[in-house]
């Protein structure tokens, strides 16, 4: 972003832009300081993202060379921003890579009231359960772990302990005064964490096939899964807290 693009924005618009970029600026700043802060964070962010992406994605971006920089207003479409939530009790999970799944959820206002009133709920948590190996069917819960979440959380990235297995995530509420008791509010779809190592069948390949794999560039793919990498169970995502 260049200065001349920011110059046409009002101070309020600059503050709004700063907010969008994650800057928490104190009120009453002089215009040049606001512009400088925005430029700095955008430049850093843009460079970080550029460096973090593959060649194909870089080239893909080249298609979009004539990008507008200011806000874009359409004459057809939305008047207000999209709702943050749909006031329903649900949870959905999406596999992102071998280590992380993205989960988003919601609890309907009526269910929250019911939990607070009738059941004296003592907090929400996610139960992440392994339900079987990759590529197989069946629904038998094997190992699981729980992640406490705040009432106003709506989404998290969840660290999956193992790749190449199927998981399911339950959105649960603890029952107040009843130690260990909880209620499953919603159950997610199944998530398959992809393998990051060669299939077991690779160990029985003949020497010719091993050589072909090496010629194909597969030598950097391990035969065994990497050990558990990230000790954190969750990572915050960009947006998605309940409005209240």
């Amino acid at each position, binding site marked *: 972003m260049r200065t001349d693009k920011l110059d046409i924005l009002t101070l309020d618009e600059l503050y709004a832009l700063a907010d969008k970029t994650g800057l928490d600026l104190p009120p009453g700043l002089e215009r040049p300081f606001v512009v400088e802060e925005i430029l700095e964070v955008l430049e850093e962010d843009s460079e970080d993202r550029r460096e973090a*992406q593959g060649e194909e994605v870089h*080239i893909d971006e080249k298609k979009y*060379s004539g990008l507008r920089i200011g806000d874009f207003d359409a004459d*057809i*479409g939305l008047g207000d921003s999209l709702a943050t939530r749909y006031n329903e009790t649900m949870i959905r999970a999406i596999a992102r890579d071998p280590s992380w799944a993205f989960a988003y959820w919601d609890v309907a206002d009526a269910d929250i009231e019911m939990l607070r009133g009738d059941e004296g709920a003592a907090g929400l948590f996610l139960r992440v359960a392994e339900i079987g190996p990759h590529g197989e069917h069946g629904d038998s819960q094997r190992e699981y772990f729980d992640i406490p979440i705040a009432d106003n959380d709506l989404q998290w990235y969840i660290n999956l302990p193992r790749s190449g297995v199927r998981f399911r995530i339950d959105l649960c509420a603890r029952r107040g005064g009843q130690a260990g008791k909880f209620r499953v509010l919603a159950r997610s779809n199944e998530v398959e964490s992809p393998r990051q190592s060669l299939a077991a069948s690779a160990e029985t390949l003949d020497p010719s096939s091993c050589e072909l794999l090496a010629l194909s560039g597969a030598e950097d793919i391990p035969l065994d899964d990497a050990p558990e990498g990230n000790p954190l169970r969750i990572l915050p995502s960009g947006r998605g807290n309940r409005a209240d």
Partner: protein
Amino acid sequence: MKAAYLALVLNAHMPFVRRPEYPRFLEERWLYEAISETYLPLLRVFRSLEADAVPFHLTLSVSPTLAAMLGDKTLCERYVEYLDSQLRLAEAEEVRVGMDPAFGPLAGMYRALYAADKEDFLELYGRDILSALDFFYKKGRVELMTSSATHAFLPIFRDCREAVTSQVETAIIAHRKAFGKHPAGFWLPQLGWYPGVADVLRSYNVQYTVVTTRGAMLGEPTPRFGSFAPVECPSGLVAFIRDAGATKAVWSESTGYPADPVYRDFYRDIGFDLPAEYLDAHLENPGERIFTGFKYWSVTGRTEDKRPYDPAAAKTRAVQHAGRFLAERKTSAAAAAGLMDRPPLMVCPFDAELFGHWWFEGPAFLEALFRQVASAGGLGLTTLGDYLKDFPDNQKSVPEFSSWGDGGFAEVWLDGSNDWIYRHVAKAVERMSELAERFPDESGLRERILDQAAREVLLAMCSDWALLMRAGKSASFARRQVEEPIANFGRIYDMLCSNTVSTEWLTRLEKRDNLFPSINYRMFRRKR
């Protein structure tokens, strides 16, 4: 039979950026630049090869949104206006730098480029690039594939079956309408594969697709020929495997061919070098600093002190790089050939716009490659469909979830900058399915409303906007491209629930988001 085969696969795609309600719309220039620098130059390469009776074979995916825009009268009109504007700028440039021995000829080169584009577009193709591609399709030189309707990254929607099937079904219908044939191949946007997508594609009679090397190597069982032969999924879908070595030589921004110092520099453009007053007088978007397409400098190196671009030297280098590329493929094929019971196949998938738009000399590279393959012998060019006819039996294996984005999975399209999209899109798909179930046999106005609702849901699934949000480029615009169709869908949903219709608004929306005229909202009915 050849000793080895090379299959070039190009993915031509642009997101739907048609905005007729604006007199000029900046993002439409993406399309015009791609037509001018990639699609028309590629067609010139095909014609040149045909004129010299050089056999060439290429697999080309034309995305449904690109096909919709290439066939749109308004955009074709505007493209001619764009060319006229570029020609006026070229004339002004010839006046400005005409006497300069280095830059004068370059201004003339751009005038000749845009003049050739205009003549080809108007006189030769009658504004119909799709028919020009179809000509080579029917001749068997170019095999056309389709891709997701709006370039959706399908692994993210794997648990929303209607989201995936609607993308595939709409794409296939659009392809048949544009080219009169059922597509045998399906380009997965970003090479985004997940195991279940094979069943979906096969259920629509798609025969093949392309996957990443890593996705295939992580498959079960491990492909015994590595990336030198495709694998077949249990459903019968064949997955061709990208040749990692071949593609890196062309893709890499830092070490690939396009980074050669003699090639034209993409970034140095008069749109950012010259005074605003001069540019404002010649461009359609006064006040906007944009890439004009007029670039006078060579890559040179990591320096601001660039050397003037020398087209003759660059073309010579493109021919040399084609020779090097071919020699390396032959070496690779020779190493693999003795280890296989069939000729090795090397599949090289690229974005089409890499050739010409980003890598200005890319079309010259391709032409030289085709000519050298034809004259050298040993290595044969093939399309993916032709290869399957010759080698229908392939190892059974299922590739792993994968993409060609950074990290190899879904990291690019699912991170803190863009993950908010999926709650809304999944809800829209769910509600669209609900509408399709509630109104299975509508006609007249209500059918129009439902069809438009289906278009809006598809538009919201476009992966390009998530990519731009993550890249931090024009995030506000990209965000709007998702929010708008979601909001439009929400308005339609509310209309149908309350049985009130704003026909004026609907008609305006239909005129703007006019892609997929044969869309059938019933494809969102839940599959039983």
